[in-house]
């Protein structure tokens, strides 16, 4: 499903070269729930960005669903993302001054969809994550937990096969974090392939996690 082959990623920040990933390789099978574990700056978020094709590797190949996404042009990468990836960001990355429903349907807009289809998809994911009653509320007026549910619902609106979550519980208390873990289990049960980047210990002992990849300074460590 997801193959990273000898990935090297280097950023330039303030004229300084920073190595984010140093020749890493791993494979994730369909339906797996993989946890990328490591401290801040270990390269976890970069791996997610590469799988989502939000950035390109400096060298190496990434194959997702048999497509070499590291070779895709910007527009094809966007289309690929729109069709296959649901991304839950650490800071949710919602648009704060529009409603819950308007945020959730954002990934569908480029497809110029029918109103019926949009409403049925939006209602279904809002129901799934219990935010149907908040659909007309402006997002900035929601609590952190509610905002996270909106972010998850948005990541599911296009029914993606792959869900990527970057530090999803960083801004949540323990109760909400456990709720989120429960949601992940439900998504896994639906057959989704899930990759979670986190340093939250709550994820490390979960029995439904297929694989944990430990990262440090851009390397995979045992």
């Amino acid at each position, binding site marked *: 499903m997801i193959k990273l082959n000898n990935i090297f990623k280097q950023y330039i920040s303030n004229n300084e070269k920073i190595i984010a990933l140093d020749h890493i390789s791993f494979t994730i099978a369909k339906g797996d729930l993989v946890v990328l574990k490591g401290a801040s700056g270990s390269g976890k978020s970069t791996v997610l960005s590469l799988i989502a094709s939000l950035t390109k590797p400096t060298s190496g190949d990434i194959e997702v669903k048999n497509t070499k996404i590291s070779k895709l042009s910007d527009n094809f990468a966007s289309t690929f993302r729109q069709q296959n990836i649901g991304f839950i960001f650490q800071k949710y990355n919602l648009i704060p001054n529009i409603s819950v429903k308007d945020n959730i349907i954002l990934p569908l807009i480029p497809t110029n969809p029918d109103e019926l289809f949009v409403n049925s998809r939006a209602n279904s994911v809002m129901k799934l994550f219990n935010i149907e009653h908040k659909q007309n509320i402006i997002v900035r007026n929601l609590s952190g937990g509610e905002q996270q549910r909106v972010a998850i619902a948005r990541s599911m609106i*296009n029914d993606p096969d792959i869900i990527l979550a970057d530090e999803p519980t960083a801004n949540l208390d323990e109760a909400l974090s456990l709720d989120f873990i429960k949601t992940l289990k439900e998504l896994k049960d639906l057959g989704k392939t899930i990759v979670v980047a986190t340093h939250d210990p709550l994820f490390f002992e979960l029995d439904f996690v297929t694989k944990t990849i430990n990262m440090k300074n851009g390397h995979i460590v045992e």
Partner: protein
Amino acid sequence: MLKLNKYLIEFAINSILRDKTKNIFIFIVFSLLIFILSSVFLVTSSLQKELNLTADSLPDIIVQKMSAGRISAINTDIADEILQIKGVTNAIPRVWGYYYFENAGINFSVVGIDQFETQYKNSLKQITQQYDFSDLDDFMIVGKGVKKVLEQNYYKDYFNFIKPNGDFKKIKIKAVFNDNLTLESNDMVLVSKDTAYEIFGIDEDKATDIVVNVANPVEVKTIAYKIKMMFPDTRVITKEDLKISYTNIFNYKTGIFLSLFIVSLFTFFMIIYDKSSSLSSQAKREIGILKALGWKTDDILKEKFYESFLLSFISYIVGVGVSFIYVYILQAPLLRDVFMGYSVLKPPFELIFSCDIKTFALIFFLSVPIYIAATIFPSWRASIVDADEVIR
């Protein structure tokens, strides 16, 4: 058939409403600029049309008597001698002048008319055909503006002219003419030639000037030269001279506004430059989020196009709409006076409708597409950067 993306348009409208303060500011500046430009163009276009019509109705040649460098009354006999020149179709002595109405502080153009004479211009010919002038000794026909001013000063049916010797000459209003040439006829008072002589105190063998019409327009200059040679103490003005003089005054005033136009455009382009060279971090982040959610660069540019088009086009329509109300309903207060200059001493007149589509197209192409480009360009720059870089 291309199906419009309803959700993309809705998102664009939402984006405008989300940034209310900034967009209201842009809307006001944009509409104001369009309003000023189109008002100036509408007023100039209206006055230009008026002046062109007036100039076209002018006689080919006007002969004035000069004495000590000033215009004085001319002998009517000269008209008969001018008529002898080959190519001259008519030479008519005119009795006319300005009558200052002290109460209102304005001038009327009083024109003496003789129904049985050849009229030197079409508008007078039409009036003489329309009204019975047989008893015009005690009556007058006035322009709309004159009628309005007289009514404001309680002269409903008549007016008392004060003759040079201080006596009153009471003249009743017979009719109000509704001429197409507002600027020319608005301040006009038509009386019989005898009455005009009386009001101005001119001897009956004299006239204010003599108007000459020539059969072949090519010969006007030659005939004007001949008249000048025959009567060296006269000033001979051709229609072309008058047109040039009108145009010079008009162009001078248009020039002032052209400077204003350039200053406004400069300000507009400064705003545009500022807008095109930067994008707020919030706007960049939003573009990054949309890219991360699967929006292509094209989708983002389309959304930005709808957003900037809606804002600029609505501002354009409002600016143009308000300028039409300002010019044709409110009659362009302040602006009209600047263009009219000396004519503040004349009765008020209405700006005639004149709308040049090309001018509005020019204003449109100088504003709306430039604003759209200035909005799209920085968005394009933000959207080609890795989404990962923008949202981190």
